[in-house]
């Protein structure tokens, strides 16, 4: 099954195309992930709206792939920046509708955890995405749990630094935290005994390549629509509550 995946939840615009065997052991037949070359400069805006479609176009050209040979689309549903999520999902829904393709929504946190496990197995994993405003989007997998098949022990949520410190302290010393949020809260996490790979490590990157693996096992959305995982209500609603 050939899957085209994209993610715009974090600062990077990630796209990937993989052939995944539908058997029990999903095996990768070919891949291209352009996200590595597209990290925005420090403090720069991600620019998903400008880059997403041209990255996909470039990917299809490089792999000499036509839309007719793609079997499934996958999109990261976050959590992440609200505008980023909407750019990715609005685009993915349109691509799916225009090509009559099944669409799967993939948790960006799950993909982050799975990607890190695949590259370098660790015991317990905390996936941490920068939620801005000094907070973090977090999900956690216990030691031995496989993000590919298992639900996270700590379901996705938004945490203040104090809450994150408590979660880190209770998750034990064999835990590894990955993601741009893990870099941002490195000090706090390491103080709690959690391991954080060095800043430039690929373990921190959201990779659409991993989305493909998750998407191969998921049930496509019945109506071609997927919901973003905002995890936060709009400020105006919070202010009124």
């Amino acid at each position, binding site marked *: 099954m050939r899957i085209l995946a994209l993610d715009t939840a974090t600062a990077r615009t990630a796209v990937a195309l993989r052939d995944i065997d539908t058997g029990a052991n999903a095996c990768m037949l070919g891949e291209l992930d352009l996200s590595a070359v597209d990290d925005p400069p420090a403090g720069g805006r991600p*620019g998903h*709206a*400008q*880059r*997403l*479609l*041209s990255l*996909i*176009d470039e990917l299809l050209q490089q792999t000499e792939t036509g*839309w007719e040979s793609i079997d499934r689309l996958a999109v990261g549903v976050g959590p992440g920046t*609200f*505008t980023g999520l*909407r*750019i990715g*999902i*609005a*685009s*993915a*829904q*349109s*691509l799916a*509708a*225009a*090509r009559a393709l099944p669409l799967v929504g993939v948790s960006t946190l799950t993909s982050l955890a799975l990607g890190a496990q695949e590259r370098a197995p660790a015991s317990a994993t905390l996936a941490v995405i920068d939620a801005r405003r000094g907070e973090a989007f977090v999900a956690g997998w216990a030691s031995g749990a496989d993000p590919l098949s298992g639900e996270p022990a700590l379901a996705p949520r938004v945490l203040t630094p104090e809450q994150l410190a408590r979660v880190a302290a209770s998750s034990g010393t064999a835990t590894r935290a990955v993601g741009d949020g893990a870099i941002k809260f490195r000090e706090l996490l390491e103080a709690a005994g959690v391991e954080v790979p060095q800043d430039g490590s690929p373990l921190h990157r959201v990779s659409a390549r991993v989305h493909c693996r998750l998407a191969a096992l998921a049930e496509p959305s019945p109506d*071609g*629509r997927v919901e*973003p995982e*905002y995890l936060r209500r*709009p*400020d*105006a*609603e919070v202010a*009124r509550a």
Partner: protein
Amino acid sequence: MSGDGLILALETSCDDTCAAVITPDGAIRSNIISSQGVHDRFGGVVPEIASRQHLTLLPPVIDEALRTAGTTLDDVGLIAATRGPGLVAALLVGFCAGKALAAARELPFSAVDHLHAHIAASFLKPSEFEPPFLALIASGGHTLLAEVSDHRALRIIGQTLDDAAGEAFDKGARLLGLGYPGGAALERLAAEGDPGAFDFPAAARMPGLDFSFAGLKTALLYKVRDLGERETERRRADLAAAYQRAIVEALLLRVRRALQQTGARRLAVGGGVAANGPLREALGGLGVELDIPPRSLCTDNAAMVASAARYSPILAFPEYLELDVYATGERR
């Protein structure tokens, strides 16, 4: 122009989620507008809430536009979407969706300016109002006068320095306890009142073609305060009528000046405020050839975006893939 195919257009610049299909020669096949209505309790449009709603509403709105037009994407030859000005987060939903629809089918794409689109509402059948003309666009988001010399070009010669005319209606309505958005309710209440009962300012002494409604709103606020709760309640209809008259006069005065200054003999009116009865009546008395499209084409809609696409640059695949939206400051 787009050849033979239909034009599918999307518009999400503020709080209306819109999709429309028109023919290459400007006949409307469908014009679907899903007004969100979720902003009323906040007393104004909340960008984040509007954007979330757009993402949810847009796919079914596109489906309905195609279904109502009795067609499918197979018959679409050009995709268009509003690029700006507007709320960036809201614009991005429709603009990215439109670009992706076009890209997946390697169709041409047209990035439309929202203000051009309001004017292009007059180019649609049945109006087919031909340039040159003077255009007045007055809504909750914008208030401007533009010289339209041909289908592709507009030159803004006057615009509001503070509130938009529709905003002035809504804020006045709120001061009179009519809720939000209350422009239409204010007009209904005003019909029972005496427009001469109070003398609200129409910024008549402000020269030129720019508009200002902030002083008017303040004048109403002070008047309500002076009258006190009971007297305000008793004279609400008079207050509404006088307030409405001031807005209409402010608009009319600058339209007259603009007609004189440009020598235009023809006037097109757009924006939600164009639905206001006393304004239409006053404009009708100007003695110029007048085009006011039906209300569904005056408020934000996608048929006008499709119409503007006929007179905007058409980009072939893949030239448009990297286009972004624009907010252009406060003007929308």
